């Protein structure tokens, strides 16, 4: 039996006849949300900004997972690996060569993608559970490598003192040290990543991914080289993860083999499933939701993880499609409402 296809999910361009102004409303909501984020530093203090930053750091990897799970239909637990690889790549570049932030950022996602290639070629021969287990194996092995390749990674000592990002050149250089600056920097990266993601799934290739998810044989019979697409998607999702890892390294300023714990893969998975798999807003809503929940639960440190567990069960059984659909429906209602009002006027 294959990964039970997520047949109920709707693709980006929703098939059911949408209210005429729905897209407008969509962009409207997106714009408002973005504006709200952009203004956040004016009203919120450090802790909230930090929470938002964490959310936005996990956003690109979540997009990556959404791409491979939600749009191509393969569950990969290796996102954490590529997240970690991205983090290590940035940390190594910055500590050894003092390369600028932007370069590290790009390099991190490139390196992640390149490492995904040799891993993906064998792994993608596998189906469903075997593939999941294989990606799980990558996590364990990555941690072993990080711990034992001491010459490169300094092993358990980890790499500390990763440089704070600097933007610009020469005397126009701006050193990012304050939380609000970080916030805007990471906001920009997150937005760019999101746009890239949308572009991807709106491209003809995006349709091919959905086709592979829906019925691989049929797609193959229509001349779509499914294997090639799956490999590319695997690498792309790794690139997204690497991006997040790089942001993480430059924000936390320390990287240790602990970034290869299951924690990160799980977190990314929870974000995507919680938000709504196979939906653009899914990963976005998910990442903020995740941070909101985990941080809110800090009110009871000792009960925190137990409650968190219950929240996961709640997700599975009460919101199996994630929370994005609720919000989408809300916006739709909104749009219909708008129409009515116009009529009444």
């Amino acid at each position, binding site marked *: 039996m*294959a990964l039970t296809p*997520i047949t109920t999910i709707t693709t980006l361009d929703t098939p059911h006849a949408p209210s005429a102004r729905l897209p407008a409303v969509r962009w409207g909501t997106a714009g408002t949300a973005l504006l709200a984020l952009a203004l956040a530093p004016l009203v919120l203090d450090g802790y909230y900004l930090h929470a938002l930053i964490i959310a936005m750091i996990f956003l690109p990897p979540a997009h990556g997972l959404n791409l491979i799970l939600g749009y191509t239909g393969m569950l990969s637990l290796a996102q954490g690996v590529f997240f970690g690889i991205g983090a290590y790549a940035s940390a190594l570049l910055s500590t050894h060569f003092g390369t600028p932030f932007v370069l590290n950022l790009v390099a991190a996602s490139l390196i992640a993608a390149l490492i995904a290639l040799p891993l993906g070629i064998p792994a993608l021969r*596998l189906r*469903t559970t075997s593939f999941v287990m*294989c990606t799980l194996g990558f996590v364990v092995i990555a941690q072993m490598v990080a711990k034992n390749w001491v010459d490169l990674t300094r092993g358990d000592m980890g790499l500390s003192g990763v440089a704070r990002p600097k933007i610009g050149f020469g005397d126009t250089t701006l050193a990012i040290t304050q939380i609000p600056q970080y916030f805007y920097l990471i906001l920009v990266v997150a937005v760019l990543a999101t746009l890239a993601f949308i572009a991807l799934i709106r491209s003809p290739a995006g349709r091919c991914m959905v086709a592979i998810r829906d019925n691989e044989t049929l797609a193959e019979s229509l001349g779509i080289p499914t294997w090639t697409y799956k490999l590319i998607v695997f690498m792309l999702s790794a690139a997204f993860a690497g991006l997040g890892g790089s942001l993480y390294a430059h924000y936390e300023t320390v990287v240790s083999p602990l970034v290869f714990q299951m924690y990160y893969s799980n977190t990314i998975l929870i974000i995507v499933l919680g938000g709504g798999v196979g939906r653009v807003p899914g990963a976005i809503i998910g990442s903020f939701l995740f941070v909101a929940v985990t941080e809110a639960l800090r009110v009871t440190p000792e009960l925190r*993880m137990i409650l968190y567990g219950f929240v*996961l*069960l709640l997700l599975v059984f009460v919101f199996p499609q994630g929370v994005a659909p609720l919000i989408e429906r809300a916006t739709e209602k909104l749009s219909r409402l708008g129409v009515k009002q116009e009529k009444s006027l």
Partner: protein
Amino acid sequence: MGNFGNFIFEQIVNGVITGSTYALIAAGMTMIFGVLRAINFAHGEYYMLGTFAAWYAISKLEVNYVVAIVLGVAAAALIAATIGRFVMQRLVGAPFQAGVLATIGISLILQNAVILAFGGGYKVFEGGWIEPVEFFGFGMAQQRIVLVVSAVAIFAGLEWMVRKTRMGKAIRAVSQNIECCQVNGIDVESVVRRTFLLGTALAALSGVLTAPVNVSVYGGMGESITLKTFAVIVMGGMGNVRGTLLAGILLGVVEALVSGLIGLQYRDSVGFIALLLMLMLRPHGLFSQKARF
């Protein structure tokens, strides 16, 4: 060179002992996978629960080890029954990732609940038959022999159960085709419940049996076991009980040799490296004839 031969032999024996524990735990997991098609990320937690309950019975209720085994397994089974009823059986036919998410949630709840209740510290497990006996020139606790023997016995029992009993036949039927069973009026949900109960009980049992030689008991002890089990069940060919026994013992032996000849720090990746190699060469598991899905 005979010396080296002895060394290898000793390592193999070590491996067989550890491996039979892996096999025991994995057997439960693989059966659950068979009927539910869900990877149980919480499986190690039942191993932990069983051990914890037995520890509690021994050090707080001051019963003897044999009683503790019963109590430990019973306690774990009780919790498993509840979870099976309210969570696992509702995963029938749910998307794969739903199972992953739900079981991660359960493992968080169980693990941290135990930490909350008993504190995070290690507990020393008293009891069991830990007197060393001389065995081909190297010592080992009697408990280890008990462990291997009971593992073999249990697997014999499982084999018989799966082949002969109605329960076993139902399990096999559900593993092959859920829809078909639903049509033929097999109560899939109850089969899932019972399989889950059996599987978790096995995990708990192996926990209690290894506790005397593993000495320590603590809330987080399930995690690493769960990971190892994954490797074993895939190698054994998902849902294949006999294959799981061999895969478990194989993993145990390879681990022992690696940590004996290369280094203990590489031990945990052994399972998955082996798994990856196998998946490349025999994508359907070492022992199952055909892929089940």
